[in-house]
């Protein structure tokens, strides 16, 4: 069961990574990046790394996404 979840998560990670790279609009690739981080967080919890998971959830998928959104907003790249 846990193996299946891990494989599913890995699949989603690759999917979101490709989407983040090849999406046309910046906002959607940014959302994909955020989902990638969230998937990583679940994976870290399964892999017994709660500290890293907490740091990843607040830093990488939390505040960094906020910085990205501000930047995209300021540069008018919401097309």
């Amino acid at each position, binding site marked *: 069961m846990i193996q299946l979840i891990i494989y599913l998560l890995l699949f989603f990670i690759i999917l979101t990574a490709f989407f983040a790279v090849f999406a046309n609009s910046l906002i959607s690739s940014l959302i994909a990046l955020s989902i990638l981080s969230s998937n990583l967080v679940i994976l870290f919890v399964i892999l017994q790394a709660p*500290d890293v998971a907490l740091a990843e959830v*607040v*830093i990488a998928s939390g505040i960094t996404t*906020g*910085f990205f959104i*501000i930047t995209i907003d*300021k540069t008018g790249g919401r097309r």
Partner: protein
Amino acid sequence: MRRIYILALILILASLLFFTFYDLIQPKEFIDDKAQISEYYIEHGVKETGAINLVTAILFDYRAFDTLGEATVIFIAVSAISLLATKERVLVSDTNFSPIVYQGISFIIPFLYILAFYLIFYGHLSPGGGFTGGVVIATTFVLLKMTFGIRYSKEEKSLQRRSLIESIGALGFILVGILGIIMGDNFLANEGAGFHLGIAGQLLSAGVIPILNLFTGVKVGSGLAIIFHRLVREE
């Protein structure tokens, strides 16, 4: 043409990494040597540092110097962004949310503070620690600013106060380290600097670790809040 070169380069790199990891995950003779150091931490970590969370024990005691460097990196990012960002006032358009958002945010803020201070003070007992708690503190500022508009907090004055708080956090970290030298031990010493380790598993234990956690949390929280503020006010 350039595309083909880059693709070839990346394919070479990928195959290189593939064989590297293939080698790496095979069990080899060096496994005994590797076991020694992590075994050492697992066996002696709780006794020597008083923290039952080994990651915090490593971050704030065994390798506290790395953490000092890390805090310095955030300090640098804050200084750099305050240096490079524009100083003049920029008009920011206020967005109006529905009352539910305002009420919801004001309801959630105290709980976020409780979460942040739980993460900081229980860093040596449960997952979390100074960095995570600090970022949660910064998140409260972010939420307040996003919902109640950018002019909610007093502009330049509060920024200056916040950078003072950040400096205090950074200074505190170093002064705790120097205390070790004054007490006749080495820099960033824990037990040798006269801190009591206490009983492992209790809130007031692990000597220097909660103090360093607090300083780091204060520093990171105010630092990231400054970064956010500067980025928002940037034209």
